[in-house]
């Protein structure tokens, strides 16, 4: 499934990365906690999150996240979007849907969980 179809499916608004909507989405991961995202995400993945702080952009940059969906209608502030524009070449999408519903809709359409490490595997 392509990012474009994901946007339609979740009734999303594209904040950034209009030219990247043809990218294929192999896998996704849902979390608010950036600590979890940093510790558990293994492969390149679409991030579904309710966290809109600047740090989410840094984390996406470090991990090579392929796109971010912000759920529950929470929009990152302009300065956060500006940093993303400068640093990341990926789509940022906002949806009014909850994290559960967003994840469920994507799962139903065949997007799989990203490979991740389980906690406690130190």
């Amino acid at each position, binding site marked *: 499934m392509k990012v474009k179809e994901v946007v339609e499916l979740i009734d999303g608004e594209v904040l950034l990365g209009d030219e990247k909507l043809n990218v294929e989405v192999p896998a996704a991961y849902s979390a*608010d*906690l*950036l*600590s979890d995202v940093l510790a558990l995400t293994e492969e390149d993945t679409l991030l579904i999150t309710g966290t809109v*702080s600047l740090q989410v952009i*840094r984390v996406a940059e*470090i991990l090579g996240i392929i796109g971010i969906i912000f759920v529950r209608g929470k929009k990152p502030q302009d300065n956060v979007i500006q940093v993303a524009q400068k*640093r990341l070449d990926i789509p940022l999408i906002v949806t009014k849907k909850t994290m559960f519903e967003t994840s469920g809709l994507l799962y139903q359409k065949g997007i799989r969980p990203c490979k991740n*490490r389980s906690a*406690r595997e130190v």
Partner: protein
Amino acid sequence: MEKILDFKIKGRDFINAGESTSKMKNYFKKIGISSKIIKRILVASYEAELNVVAHADSGVMEIFVDEDKIVVTVEDEGPGIEDIDRAMQEGFSTASDEVREMGFGAGMGLPNIKRNSDDLEIESEVNKGTRVKMVFNVS
């Protein structure tokens, strides 16, 4: 070993935390380190930097390189860690609410540093500071 980069880290400065990692990324790409290893180095270094920002007053990150490894050290002035074994446990955290609101403070950072590095040394003195040394094999 040759020192190739260093960065100052300010406590509480969550805005600039992570700026250094993007400079590191460019440098490692230039010298031909694989993207998989780069990701491990960046994740571990960012976690160590965040720990200074979240828990200490100020610090310095230094990056050293030789033929077969990359070493990143992060040294800070701050409260230190009383019980390092305990701090290494997944889930142990003394992070403030401010830190948690930004999405951190799950007590995952130090275990994540350990997982992403090939060798990890932590030295700490209470009320003085902490030194974290991470080694990454690149050959």
